[in-house]
């Protein structure tokens, strides 16, 4: 499941959980059915600030290791994935995702991934990138929301995860709308973790709303996941806001 955290003060893309400096978060971590551990969460922040060295996709593709600082310098959506699915050596697997309007409590969307029943070799002919991309078709009303909470549930493999971090960058066409940075911290091995992020949408100009509605799927996002400052997962998503018309 393609998730990435967004803590938007400008971007109304709530397809991915995130938090910002004004949001609150809560999380649980279950090493086993009776074991719970708190998870430290770092407040997200925007990375559109000056001083971040500009990087290009071509530069990063030639790098052996991609760090958070590398992706923070990207100026546009990547054309390629910056890592392969096999690099998720920690077996991080998102199993549930939910977003809700915080003002009314209305659940907008909830999805879960049942346990895989695929037999070995059945999915060999499917593009390995296909599972790392999702597409959302929002209505214009979504752009009017002010506060959205996003809950994500994920499992990890049998290795402990130090410093799990997520950076998500949203673009409309080739313009960076917002970059969000979120740290999950430590994840126990073989655990299931749940985290909710509450973030606020800023008022958008009518011009921006109009353009985003009139140009479906030109709002896109890259979600980068890091463990110990090394890129292990890269998911993508795009969005429309015209309600399917």
């Amino acid at each position, binding site marked *: 499941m393609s998730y990435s955290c967004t803590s938007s003060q400008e971007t109304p893309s709530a397809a991915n959980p995130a938090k910002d400096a004004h949001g*609150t*978060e*809560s*999380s*649980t971590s279950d090493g086993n059915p009776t074991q719970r551990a*708190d998870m*430290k*969460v770092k407040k997200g922040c925007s990375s559109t600030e000056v001083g971040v060295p500009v990087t290009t996709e071509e530069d990063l*593709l*030639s*790098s*052996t290791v991609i760090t958070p600082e590398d992706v923070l310098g990207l100026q546009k959506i990547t*054309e*390629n994935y910056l890592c*392969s*699915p*096999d690099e998720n050596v920690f077996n991080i697997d998102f199993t549930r995702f939910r977003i*809700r*309007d915080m003002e*009314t*409590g*209305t*659940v*907008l*969307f*909830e*999805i*879960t*991934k049942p346990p*895989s029943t695929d037999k070995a070799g059945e999915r*060999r002919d*499917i*593009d*390995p*990138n*296909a*599972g790392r*991309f*999702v*597409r959302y*078709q*929002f*209505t*214009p*009303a*979504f*752009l*009017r929301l002010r506060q959205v*909470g996003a809950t994500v549930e994920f499992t990890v493999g049998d290795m402990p995860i130090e410093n799990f971090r997520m950076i998500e960058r949203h673009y409309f066409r080739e313009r960076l709308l917002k970059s969000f940075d979120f740290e999950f911290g430590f994840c126990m091995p073989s655990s299931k973790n*749940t985290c*909710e992020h509450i973030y606020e949408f800023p008022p958008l100009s009518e011009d921006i709303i109009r353009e985003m*509605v*009139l*140009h*479906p*799927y030109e709002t896109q996002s890259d979600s980068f996941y890091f463990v110990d400052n090394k890129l292990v997962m890269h998911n993508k998503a795009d969005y429309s806001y*015209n*309600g*399917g*018309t």
Partner: protein
Amino acid sequence: METDISGVSRARVSVLPSAEITTTLRPETERPRCASTPCSPIRGTVTGYQILHMDSNYLVGFTTGEELLKTAHKWSDGTAEKGSGTEAVSSSTQSTISKSVDLGIHRSSRILKAKSRSYQPYDVPSANGRRRRRMPSCCDTIHRSFAPSEPGRALHASLPLCLLKGKRAQSKSLDYLNLDKISIKQSSDTEVLQYQLQHLNLRGERVFTRKKT
């Protein structure tokens, strides 16, 4: 660490979208609906996932890269079979389907406004003194080998570049087999084919290997 405060689910107003929009959703069961109660939330399945809830006031479609590729493959096969003599039929079908979609959306909009006061549709600027209800369809999205006349294409209007690149990468990997140079005699040799297939798989695994500096 703050504990999770689960949101309280409130009565929601959901309108089942028209079939043209939710081609990727397969409803699990058909629920009886009553005019006095809110419509059932949208439920369905997408390849590998189960959609538990989708409030159509805000979200009308969700799909994955796998679904997009499958649909693209299906449409490209269908387009190749139809040939060029069906354009007139396609255009009339498109107008009929578009009309039905418009009616569906128009009807949905009325229901939404009647039942939800918090709904704030995008305020379309009036044209010629008349306020339009719906958004104009996108006309500058890049289309990839799809016949635009078929219904349910909104969600699959275009493949993202990352998936297209993946398709091209997989296609290029077949060149390694030199299939066009395989003689009839060689093609019947299963051992040769197995050897080549093994190399194909290995090549596919190396697609994402970055260059080592």
